[in-house]
């Protein structure tokens, strides 16, 4: 068990100037200040990979820059699941007594820093170099294949996924840090250009510049701290060609987190679910069990994922509208759920009492899954 004490999230968007390391520093300082700590208090530093940086030792790089001399430092790479995987490691370190105050950080200039082409090369690794990449597929295409199978299986038209994008945008409208805040409609999604059929531009998250960070403690330091009640993971494949579409790993991961937290899905008040594409969100919600099979889009259309709905979802706007600054993108969901559980989400605050949140991230093409159940103190 661990406690999330401080959180930090920068604005996301095309914000040229700061480097990947600069974004990490900004987010880290915000999280430390929020926890009421200084850099000298930190004895563990975990940093997610940045595609625009490609550094061998990202945690050491950040620690030196800020002036931290931690007992334990390492970088982590499990794609979009990296942020939650680092939370799992931080929790394990503080539980084992290997560290007392662990700073977890990610950030990059993914939108503005791509001239290096490191970013594109790194992302291409999601495909198999011999059996997939030469065919001409890219990351949206791999998810489009998932969308094709999903829509066929449930007898749905592509428009069935659009309400998820509409809901994410509606949420982002209330967050000053979001990349896209102008409301959209299902018709807007349906008239946006095809990227990889059946996915259109507004079914896809953007790339962004930004950073996110949080501090994990062994014991709570104040009533604002949020408890890591249970975590789970599953890693069943790397390449989409080898994926079992009926058992991607999300269910296993979520069930383990719930079991360790000693709760069921009925006890979950709100959720932060990885949404790199509309189909990602639909498939994760359904495999986890927060939506009935084939119904995620219909639930979004019915307002069930709204702030006032049955299960408020990604109330910051998610990757689809808050933005996707790499590893920090998947950490933004966690930061938002912590804000909600503290009752500090301002105009985005869910109006009813919320006690427990489920956060889930996937990396690769539904390849790596990590889930956490968070509880208000």
């Amino acid at each position, binding site marked *: 068990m661990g406690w999330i004490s401080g959180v930090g999230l920068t604005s996301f968007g095309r914000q040229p100037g700061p480097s990947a390391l600069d974004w990490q520093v900004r987010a880290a300082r915000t999280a430390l200040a929020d926890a009421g700590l200084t850099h000298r208090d930190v004895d563990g530093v975990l940093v997610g990979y940045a595609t625009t940086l490609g550094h061998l030792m990202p945690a050491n790089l950040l620690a030196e820059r800020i002036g931290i001399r931690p007992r334990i430092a390492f970088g982590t790479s499990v794609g979009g699941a990296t942020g939650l995987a680092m939370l799992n490691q931080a929790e394990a370190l503080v539980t084992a007594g290997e560290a007392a105050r662990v700073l977890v950080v990610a950030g990059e200039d993914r939108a503005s820093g791509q001239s290096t082409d490191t970013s594109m090369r790194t992302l291409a690794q999601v495909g198999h170099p011999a059996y997939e990449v030469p*065919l001409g597929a890219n990351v949206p295409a791999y998810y489009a294949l998932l969308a*094709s199978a999903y829509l066929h299986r449930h007898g749905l038209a592509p428009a069935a996924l659009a309400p998820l994008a509409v809901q994410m945008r509606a949420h982002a409208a209330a967050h000053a840090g979001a990349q896209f805040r102008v409301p959209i409609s299902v018709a807007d999604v349906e008239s946006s250009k095809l990227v990889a*059929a059946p996915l259109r531009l507004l079914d896809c998250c953007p790339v962004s510049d930004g950073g996110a960070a949080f501090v994990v403690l062994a014991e709570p330091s104040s009533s604002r701290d949020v408890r890591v009640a249970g975590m789970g993971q599953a890693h069943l494949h790397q390449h989409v060609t080898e994926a079992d579409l009926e058992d991607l790993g999300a269910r296993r991961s979520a069930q383990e987190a719930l079991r360790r937290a000693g709760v069921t899905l009925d006890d979950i008040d709100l959720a932060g679910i990885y949404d790199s594409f509309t189909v990602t969100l639909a498939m994760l919600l359904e495999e986890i069990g927060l939506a009935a099979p084939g119904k995620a889009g219909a639930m979004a259309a019915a307002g069930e994922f709204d702030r006032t709905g049955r299960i408020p979802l990604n109330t910051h706007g998610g990757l689809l509208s808050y933005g996707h600054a790499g590893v920090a993108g998947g950490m933004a969901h966690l930061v938002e759920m912590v804000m909600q559980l503290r009752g500090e989400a301002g105009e985005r605050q869910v109006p009813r009492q919320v006690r427990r949140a489920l956060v889930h991230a996937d990396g690769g093409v539904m390849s790596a899954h990590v889930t956490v159940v968070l509880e208000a103190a």
Partner: protein
Amino acid sequence: MVTTTVTPDRDWTTGEPVILVSRCRSCAHRWYISRDACPACGSPDVVTVPAAGTGQVVAHTTVHRVAAGAVDEPGPVGIALVDLDEGVRVMGRCAPETVVGSPVRVVFLIRPGESDQPALLPFFEAAGP
């Protein structure tokens, strides 16, 4: 038309116009992406057999911006996941109008590759009912 003798350790990724299916002689598990040992039981006793090249479309997309790393860039291309009759799943090119659930069979596109060796790509065409 490519006519070369098929060797059991080479497939379309190394210039032979064939899809190879790997089979574990210890536990009978079958898979597609080449490995030197069985991912189910760990046995190194693996045989490869040429696939008939027929199967059913599981998923289909048309990519409008072809990724870096493709061997050619002919504009929008169809990509499919196909479950072969041998029981393994394969990714290949296909026509943009490909229908999920329909039967297909493989042919191989020949594209200029790096150095002198042409690159092959599996292309799944409609096989009829």
